[in-house]
């Protein structure tokens, strides 16, 4: 596009910088013919290029600042995250420490010790039930025997009554026979009388014994009944409850062990997270390097821009006033096609349209086009 060929210089009829003495000039300052069209095209390009370079520098600075702000913000958030992950792992570690034991009267008792203790208590209980059942059955058998003996006793008292009746009858007969014998039987009659007294006493004794034995029988029967009720209360379901309690306890211990394992994993994951985040924060230092690179690029762009501006001024000084700048429309269109972000595009357009105008002097260009919708930044100029 910047072809220095000068084949249509004659057409324009315009001479550019025509010093009188060519030979007096240094080697590089030799005159060449350039068409006015090419010159105005170059001037147009130079103008747009310089402004574009300004815009690009601005955009680079803006991008660098944006990355810096965002990176600092991200680093801060990641630091918070790392701190939280650390706190989380400490909390989980506390739970892990507590999970395996329970608080009993202000003392931490390991769960497995507690379970063994409770199982021992229940084992003792079952043993007591067995011992109690055995004693109850021994008592039942004992009272069975006592009842038989007492019945025997009742029968014996009945036998005494029978014997007594017979004795009494014999004494009566003896008295009759003695009176029949007259004087000779007098002594015998006394004996017979004594026997009758004896028999009456025996009868009374038997009666007293019967009444006592009846009371004993009644007591033994009541006791026997109560004991039967006790022995007949089946405690085997309570004994078998031990199976269920044992299973429950085992399950409780297994579950606690599982929880502990899971929590330990969680604690170590939190700790890993914290160290990973620390690495991420270190990784964020790429921003510093990026900033330095962008600054270097910007510096070189500034040099290029200054050089271009200087050259433009020199050429402008030598070009006749009639030659204007031609706007490189096609090139501008291509450039605009690259600016897909509307705020960036807007900044570029402002720079092209307003630089050097009265509005520029009033500080319009310093306004941040990206400042938000209320600032009019949403207006699509192209």
């Amino acid at each position, binding site marked *: 596009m910047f072809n220095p060929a000068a084949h249509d210089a004659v057409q324009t009829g315009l001479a550019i910088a025509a010093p009188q003495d060519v030979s007096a000039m240094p080697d590089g300052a030799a005159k060449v013919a350039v068409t006015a069209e090419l010159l105005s095209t170059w001037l147009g390009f130079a103008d747009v290029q310089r402004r574009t370079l300004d815009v690009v520098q601005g955009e680079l600075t803006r991008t660098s600042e944006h990355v810096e702000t965002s990176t600092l913000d991200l680093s801060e958030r990641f630091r918070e995250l790392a701190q939280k992950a650390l706190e989380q792992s400490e909390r989980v570690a506390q739970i892990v420490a507590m999970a395996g034991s329970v608080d009993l009267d202000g003392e931490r008792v390991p769960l497995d010790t507690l379970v063994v203790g409770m199982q021992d208590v229940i084992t003792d209980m079952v043993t007591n039930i*067995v011992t109690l059942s055995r004693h109850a059955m021994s008592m039942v058998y004992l009272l069975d025997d006592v009842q038989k003996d007492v019945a025997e006793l009742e029968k014996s008292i009945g036998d005494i009554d029978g014997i007594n009746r017979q004795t009494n009858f014999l004494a009566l007969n003896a008295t009759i026979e003695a009176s029949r014998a007259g004087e000779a039987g007098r002594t015998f009659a006394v004996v017979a009388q004594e026997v009758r007294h004896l028999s009456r006493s025996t009868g009374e004794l038997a009666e007293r014994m019967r009444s006592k034995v009846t009371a004993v029988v009644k007591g033994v029967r009541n006791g026997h009944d109560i004991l039967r009720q006790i022995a007949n209360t089946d*405690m085997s379901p309570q004994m078998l409850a031990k199976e269920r309690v044992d299973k429950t306890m085992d399950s409780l211990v297994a579950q606690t062990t599982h929880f502990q394992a899971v929590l330990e994993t969680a604690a170590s994951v939190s700790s890993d997270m914290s160290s990973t985040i620390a690495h991420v924060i270190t990784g964020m230092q790429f921003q510093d390097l990026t900033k330095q690179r962008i600054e270097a690029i910007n510096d070189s762009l500034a040099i290029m821009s200054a050089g271009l501006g200087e050259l433009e001024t020199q050429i402008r000084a030598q070009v006749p006033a009639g030659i204007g700048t031609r706007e490189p429309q096609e090139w501008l269109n291509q450039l605009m096609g690259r600016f897909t972000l509307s705020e960036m595009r807007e900044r570029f357009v402002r720079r092209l349209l307003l630089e050097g105008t009265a509005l520029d002097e009033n500080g319009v260009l310093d306004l941040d086009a990206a400042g938000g919708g209320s600032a009019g930044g949403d207006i699509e100029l192209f």
Partner: protein
Amino acid sequence: MDYGIEVRDQEAVIRLRGRLTFNDHAKLRILIGEMGQNKLKRQVLDLSSLEFVDSAGIGMLLIAREEMDRAAKQFVLRGATGQVKRVLTVAQIAKIVPIED
């Protein structure tokens, strides 16, 4: 509960059938007497046909063991299943009376 005694060469096997509860206490006393009277040293209580035992039944088995001890005879429980086996296990009867499968 009812039972049958089978006298073999080395041992007397008493097979209990049905449910052993407090109501059988008189019957069991007779059985203990019979076990004491036969000449064999080894008295085996076959529980494989016993379906249920209550706590009084466990007490009676222990009394039977005491009586066999007194008569210098060996007393063995054999073949318990189901509820009977569970109760014997929970009560740790094996610590006092030999239990065979």
